């Protein structure tokens, strides 16, 4: 069964269709990369899946759940994690606090007021910190991390949420070549057991991680297939890769 199925999705901003009649399916254990030129509607697509933007028409199904009917925090609680294009961490909180705040459950008022850090939570924070290479920076405030580390921290915050669907918007933007490699390795690890959608411009990085690639152009689906298929596609070369 598909974890994510987007059907006939359209959103129009004052008549401009940022995403136009798009359909997309992502299965379990799959890591899908979405590529396309600027303005192709990639980020808008993720915005609609996670509830930030309401679609004009169409359906987004996460397992059996119709996401277009839910608002942001409900979608997150259902198991969808979103990483934003510019790293969005809580800068005045430490790495530990950033991770802890993302731990699922106890997200109502009373639950959070009387929240206690159990050994399982500590363990979970430590293991995620290990995965995102921030084990030595636990008490550093997020605002003091380097750009790449903030990217990792935000991925770590998603991992704490244990999402079944992971949406990553340009996870390696601003990273060094070495950091990109580390991130690719990390993503290959964490995409197991869940579904992942990654937006990325860096083709070398996409090649390292993608199972399947979706190419968008002007809000529409241009091509879909393996990396090799897509790179050989004439329309893709003409509109995107050729430049």
């Amino acid at each position, binding site marked *: 069964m598909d974890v994510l199925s987007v059907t006939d999705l359209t959103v129009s901003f004052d008549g401009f269709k940022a995403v136009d009649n798009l359909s997309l399916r992502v299965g379990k254990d799959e890591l899908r990369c979405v590529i396309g030129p600027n303005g192709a509607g990639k980020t808008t697509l993720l915005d609609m899946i996670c509830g930030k933007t309401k679609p004009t028409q169409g359906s987004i199904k996460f397992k059996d759940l119709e996401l277009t009917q839910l608002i942001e925090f409900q979608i997150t609680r259902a198991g969808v994690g979103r990483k*934003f294009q510019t790293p969005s961490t809580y800068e005045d909180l430490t790495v530990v606090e950033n991770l802890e705040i993302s731990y699922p459950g106890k997200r109502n008022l009373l639950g959070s007021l009387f929240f206690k850090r159990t050994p399982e939570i500590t363990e979970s*924070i430590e293991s995620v910190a290990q995965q995102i290479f921030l084990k030595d920076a636990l008490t550093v405030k997020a605002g003091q991390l380097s750009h790449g580390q903030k990217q990792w921290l935000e991925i770590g915050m998603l991992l704490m949420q244990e999402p079944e669907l992971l949406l990553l918007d340009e996870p390696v933007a601003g990273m060094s070549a070495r950091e990109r490699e580390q991130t690719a390795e990390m993503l290959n690890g964490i995409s197991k057991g869940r579904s992942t959608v990654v937006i990325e411009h860096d083709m070398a990085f996409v090649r390292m991680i993608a199972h399947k690639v979706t190419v968008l152009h002007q809000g529409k689906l241009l091509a879909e297939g393996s990396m090799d298929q897509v790179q050989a596609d004439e329309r893709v070369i003409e509109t995107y890769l050729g430049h």
Partner: protein
Amino acid sequence: MANGDSPRQNGGDGLIGRLNRHGVVLLALLLLVAMPMLLDTFRLSLMAKYLSLAFCAVGIVLIWGYGGILSLGQGAFFGLGSYMMAMFLKLEASAVTDSSTSALSAFFGQAGLPDFMSWNSVEKLPWWWEPFHHVWFTIPAILIIPPLLAFILGYVNFRRRVGEVYFSIITLALSAIMAIVIVGQQGLTGGINGITDFKTFMGWNLDPDGAKLAMYFITAVLLLLCVLVGRFILRSRLGKVLVAIRDREDRVRFSGYDPAVYKAFIFAVAALFSSIGGALFTLQVGLASPSLVGIVPSIEMVIYAAVGGRLSVIGAVYGTVLVSYGKTFFSENFVQYWLYMIGALFIVVVMFLPGGLASFLDKLRPVRREQVPVGGALNIEGN
């Protein structure tokens, strides 16, 4: 990793952190031991008046410093507490019939009616005054009505994503409306004169020195309790969520939280503190007045918090006392210039000392570089 370079990695070190850790004990010693020993009864009851205003400042630290909501309407909640208490006291005072009041009542033909109502030809006690005959209604009302109103007002606005400066304007309007209604409905609220001329609380005379001393201690203890509750909230996960909302509300939704509920909650807590402060104020000063609910007092309360340090619940108490003493001193000596002075003070603090007094003390100390042991990192209490 970058952590070795950053001297203040967690909120725990630095003077703010230390003040927060030992500050409550220090404040308790100051309020419960030093002040009663050093001050005479007059100064002490003046102090008690300031402390009842400090409840509002502590609340403002929670909503403004940590919740990122600048409320200019705390005077309205202070006023609600103040007026509800005054209504109870006034009804008690009106029920007492000595020869002079009974003669007056006989003249107007209504016993048990507050004097200002008789003066305004209000012949029957309004229905919403009736429950305030009973202390078992009044006290819970003071503790429940203002926070409930605040929660509803907050939730409705935050849910529709009305925030920041727009919400500040709404709270500003709230305190303005409150003052206008009170002044306008003279027969029902006492108007510009407020409600005054009462001396007993459940038969207990509030006037003698002993009673004033007792009220001082009650106020100080309740204030310390509010400070502790505030700290408990800030140290909990809820407190971290608040900081997260303040800095990046949009992101918090995608961590699975509903920011509207959290913001409304902390707004309600601040309203509760203000209301308690208002009730205590009325008990000690013997007055509920529209001049304490409007825009000017609401802004003054924000200044208390700003001067004390808007990230420190304890600093808010010091800020209130300091600014209030200053106000008493300057307004006695430079009557016309006081408002300009407090305005200038606010501007100076916001521009040059955004962390308030708490951060000023920090600046005086040489910055120490502290290495945080990695192994113990998970056990470090934040805030």
